[in-house]
């Protein structure tokens, strides 16, 4: 799914050049659930931007879904972001003036999907995420968890090769965060490739592979034999809350 080889990124601001990534080689297979962790400044955001085709590497190659994307132009990048990548952000990044339904349709709008088809698929995916009675609500009328679920629906809508989630639970309370993680785990069980960027180890432990980054390098690549199960954690939390 993702094959990067000796990928590096250097930012130059005037006289200074700051290396953000120092030659990373990494394979992510289809169906994986990878968490990238690290302190701020470790390079995980840069990694995310490069994987998400929001930025270009300074050196190295990047194969996405079997296609070398290292040397494509802006328009191709936009098209690939649209078709191959589903973004989920910490701050949801929904358009405040659009309803949940319209927000989900937006990705399909840029894919050129016909109106009826857009409506149909957006309805399907929002229903899947339990938002069928929130279709015509605006983001400010929804809770954080609901907003993030709308964002996940939007990320899923074009059947992307990979979901890139950047601190998706960062703006949510712990229980709602777990609910979001349980959605990701369920999606992953159904075969969706997910790359999660987080600095919280508790969240990272829900994935099946943790990449630890520091100073622009991957310093640890660890398979998680038994990831945490968000669904069970929620149950446990509920029981505890019930007893209290």
């Amino acid at each position: 799914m993702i094959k990067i080889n000796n990928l590096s990124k250097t930012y130059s601001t005037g006289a200074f050049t700051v290396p953000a990534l120092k030659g990373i080689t990494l394979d992510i297979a289809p169906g994986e659930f990878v968490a990238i962790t690290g302190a701020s400044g470790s390079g995980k955001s840069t990694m995310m931007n490069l994987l998400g085709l929001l930025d270009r590497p300074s050196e190295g190659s990047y194969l996405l879904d079997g296609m070398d994307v290292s040397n494509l132009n802006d328009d191709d990048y936009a098209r690939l972001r649209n078709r191959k990548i589903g973004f989920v952000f910490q701050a949801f990044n929904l358009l405040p003036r659009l309803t949940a339904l319209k927000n989900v349709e937006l990705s399909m709008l840029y894919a050129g999907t016909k109106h009826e088809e857009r409506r149909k698929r957006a309805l399907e995916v929002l229903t899947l995420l339990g938002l069928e009675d929130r279709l015509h609500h605006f983001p400010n009328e929804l809770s954080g968890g609901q907003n993030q679920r709308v964002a996940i629906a939007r990320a899923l809508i074009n059947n992307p090769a990979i979901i890139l989630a950047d601190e998706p639970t960062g703006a949510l309370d712990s229980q709602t965060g777990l609910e979001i993680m349980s959605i990701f785990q369920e999606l992953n069980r159904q075969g969706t490739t997910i790359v999660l960027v987080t600095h919280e180890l508790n969240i990272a432990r829900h994935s099946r592979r943790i990449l630890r980054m520091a100073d622009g390098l991957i310093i640890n690549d660890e398979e998680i034999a038994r990831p945490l199960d968000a669904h069970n954690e929620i149950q446990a939390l509920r029981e505890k809350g019930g007893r209290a």
Partner: protein
Amino acid sequence: MNIGELILVAIESIKSNKLRSFLTTLGIVIGIAAVIAVVGIGQGGRAMLMQEMEKFGTNMFGIWVNYRDGESFRLDDLQINDITVIKENVPQVKYLAPASYGQMQLRGSKGHKSVQVIGTTADYAQVRNLETVWGRFIRDDDAAVGRRVIVLDERTALKLFGPGNPVGKKVMLMSNSAVVVGVIKSDSSMLGFNSQQIAYLPWSFLSRLNGWEVIHELQGSASSKEEVEAAMNLSKKILERRHHAPNHYYAYSLEQEMESANKVTGIMTLIIGCIAGISLLVGGIGVMNIMLVSVTERTREIGIRMALGARRKDILVQFIIESIVLCLLGGFIGIILGYGGALLVARLAKWPPLVSGWTVLLAVGFSVAVGLFFGIYPANKASKMDPIEALRRD
């Protein structure tokens, strides 16, 4: 993303900030309203003017004596025989009448009034398209036999005799009397040519009253519009030859007058167009200003759209369309307000409002052009944003 969807996106964005959108577009509204109102009023006025002038018949022409500095007035510069000679020799001249002007006190059974009197012949009615209400106009045999008759206009007749048909009644003028043989319709013209009260006398009768023969002006009409020029110039030539006085006569035609009136209104329209253009320019700068603010405010939206797969071109077109839709909206409001204004003024001035399809089309075209021109810079700025930077912004 197709154009229809982009327009919907633009409308949604405009709707979401109604007050600001309205204030932004105000400059365009005022500019377009001003153009539509002024052009509408101007064209209405011009149409009215033309209509009034055409009442006289577009075939009409006139000849004056052209006195230069130091030349003194002479009674015999235009003579009654000149008319006969011109009519015999210039086939293009259909009617030709003398006009001798004066002011006289008229007294009837019910009142008296000082009016303008015109001494003339039967042709005058044809030249000026006069309409008789009662009786008849002056006839050629009146002049021939020196009959003491008078034709009044409606208003004078009312003043002298009260309502009703005054034909056959006697009018005292100076120490003489004349019989009313006809009443002609008063002109309700806005131009004021004929709006004063007028009485017509046979030219020979007026000469006898005055004690001298004088013709101030010849008024004629050509047999067709195309022949006005020839009729006018040939008549002038005959006068010059008969009186051995080159360049002594001045000829004019209604056609010429209309042309110069048209030229004046044309220049007016041009000046107004320039002023309107400037106001639209100012309006356009306002739109650009707000679009720039809007682009900055919506940086994050731009970032989100880019992350979801919007190409730079999509962002560019989105903002340009938003700018055009904004200006078009202003244009439409402006057209409605301007048309209302033109209607109001026309109602007050009693002439038809004339807002042509072309004016509206031009206004719409101008709105689009302003939106496009002043939308490009902000839209370009939006499309050049770095998606990472844009997403990071609050």
